[in-house]
């Protein structure tokens, strides 16, 4: 008889079972972890390393270490401020519109309609979200034509002068925001609708008994209980809007000039058109840091207004 025999046989058996169960668990998460390592962590580490190299896509054998030169080059590029200002403008406008319009649409959908009407409205709001951006941009570029577009035609009937939607540096930004909000509002309204439907009806019933008005119902019940959803959508909205690419690329190609060029378009231009992967990686890192900082700030201030039940 040895020491191991003195161990409780039930405990000994459960350690073996635990080991097997852990093994099974690791095997099941292995494909996802492999995907994470190959497609997320690996490229992130590669970007960090590449950002310190002069790395040409066509001649990688001539790459060499240059330290922080790519970063100093970016910060001294007059276009850097322009693309970041454009991106911040898109973020602030789009997130504001996503939250406000998304909530309004969700609240309208949350009313009691005939199921067919409700499903029809939901589909029409969500349909743009599943439409290809390229297709949407082609159609909107027709609609936004200054001289031959439908939007200016109908505005003309209302006595409004032709608006240079895609050929003015100011209006081109507005056009990008309109198309991007149109395309994504379905997702936000659906998330808000789910959040609204999670609010217990008894709270509204109690409020009705107490004689509260519509605004009080909204500000004291709906909004506080919807705050986790608002917070989640703000985080998602900020992250996605900072990475805006397909809408301005397809609609305006970043023009006129750099008027609608976002940071990601700038990264793409330098990485894949100019083959300067090191520089593009450095710019990508700056975007990553900014998004992280803003997300941390949002999480920090969320304690003041997000109420989890």
């Amino acid at each position, binding site marked *: 008889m040895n020491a191991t025999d003195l161990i409780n046989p039930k405990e000994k058996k459960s350690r073996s079972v635990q080991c097997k169960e852990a093994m*099974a668990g690791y*095997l099941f998460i292995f494909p996802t972890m492999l995907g994470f390592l190959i497609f997320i962590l690996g490229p992130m580490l590669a970007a960090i390393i590449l950002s310190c190299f002069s790395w040409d*896509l*066509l*001649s*990688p054998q001539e790459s060499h270490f240059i330290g922080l030169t790519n970063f100093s080059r970016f910060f001294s590029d007059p276009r850097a401020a322009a693309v970041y200002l454009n991106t911040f403008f898109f973020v602030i406008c789009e997130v504001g519109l996503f939250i406000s319009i998304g909530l309004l649409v969700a609240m309208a959908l949350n009313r009691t309609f005939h199921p067919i009407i409700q499903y029809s409205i939901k589909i029409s709001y969500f349909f743009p979200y599943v439409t290809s951006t390229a297709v949407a*941009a*082609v159609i*909107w*570029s*027709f609609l*936004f*034509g*200054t*001289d*031959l577009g439908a939007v200016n035609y109908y505005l*003309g009937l209302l006595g409004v002068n032709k608006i*240079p*939607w*895609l*050929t*003015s*540096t100011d209006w081109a930004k507005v056009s990008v925001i309109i198309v991007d909000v149109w395309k994504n509002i379905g997702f936000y309204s659906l998330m808000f609708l789910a959040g609204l439907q999670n609010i217990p009806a008894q709270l509204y019933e109690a409020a009705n008994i107490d004689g509260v008005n519509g605004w009080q119902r909204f500000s004291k019940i709906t909004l506080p209980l919807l705050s986790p959803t608002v917070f989640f959508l703000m985080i998602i909205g900020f992250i996605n809007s900072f990475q805006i690419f397909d809408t301005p690329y*397809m*609609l*305006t*190609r970043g*023009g*006129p*000039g*750099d008027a609608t060029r976002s940071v990601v378009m700038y990264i793409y*231009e330098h990485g*894949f*058109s*100019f*083959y300067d*992967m090191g520089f593009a990686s450095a710019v990508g890192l700056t975007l990553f840091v900014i998004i992280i900082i803003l997300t941390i700030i949002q999480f920090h201030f969320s304690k003041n207004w997000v109420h989890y039940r």
Partner: protein
Amino acid sequence: MKKYQLFLIGILILTLILAVGIPQTGAAKKERLEFVFWLTSPEALPGWQKTFSDFAKENPNIELVYTPVEADTWGVYVDKVATLIAGGKAPDVMWVATEGVRLLAERKLARPIDDLVKRDSKELKEYFDDVAPSLIDSFKVKGKLYQLPYSWNNMVIYYNPKLLEKAGLQPPKADWTKDDFLNYAKALTVVKDGKTIQYGFATEVGYFTSSIPWMFANNTNLLKDDWTASNLDDPKVVEAVQFVQDLIYKYKVCPAPAAGFNIFNAFMSGNVAMFGAGRWPLMTFLPEKFKDFNIQVWPKWKTQVTEFGVDGFPILSSSKNVSASWKLVKYMTSKSVLDRLVGSEDAPLGNIPARRSLATGTEMAKIPPANFQAFYGSLSNAKSVPAPAQFNKVESIWLRYYGLILANEMSAAEGCAKAHQEINKILGK
């Protein structure tokens, strides 16, 4: 052993088999050749596949593996191929236009073919006799030839004869001038109830398609003749760009171009009477059974020099199958293959065959436009589109400022001056 453990082991073995592959024995080893080309439209694929299958029949020892790359422009196509090359999947042969030749040559990614041309000079004599020297010279970099011309395009003015007739205008003659062009554009612009319902001309924010043709006509160029420095400080360049801006805002004969504006659709619907392009609009017009168009050479200003761009098939330096690659290149420039480039009314193609006999032949005459001779005829007084090794950067810089000029947010002089500084910095001047 538990069932799930057996299942996981089975998956692992299957993965290993698929990764390693089952070796084939007994079959003769073919020479594998990888070819990448720009698929301009899905409709063009059957034509390419026919060409490849005919090549395979003539060369049973060569296994041709082709990769079509879809892209809007040559620039986007080259970007995608660059990604392939960077990923270690460089093809043996690829389709490259003027815009990419110097890039490949100066980075030693493409292999000069002078030795191969010299070796097969007898076989290639009829080819060189049938191709305009200017097309061949455009593929020489520092005296070395990198590819044989396959197809090309120039810039001509498309016009709608019915709209001209309605405006009481005769079709323009080959020696028409820039002032004639402007008069035509004014006469063809129709304003009704304060709204322009028909524009005399339409253009886009384009390097090849919009700015360079007017610069050439004004006897100047975006870059110096050797493409090593910007020429945007030349007053004639500013004059040419100012003219395009004036077409939109002073004479109001042209709509302000936007990224998504489809000139071809506007032309087919009668909203635009003239525009500039190469042969490629045929791929839009003819499938729609639209034939109300003809062409004329670019109007004369200080000169009547035509802009052209050519394409061909360089053999990449990394290719280990130079012999098979060269066979493919010669095959692709043979009469039988280039003959297909003429296309037909039912299956039109957008490039002009490099061979004179085909581009001016009877088959070409069967397809609109009626004045098809304007394509090859203009080569006697033509210049290549300026395309240095840094073409992507030069084009990007120019189009940023040209876009602002055509949006009337910057004067032609200021735009040219700013672009001049940036382009010279890129070119190391």
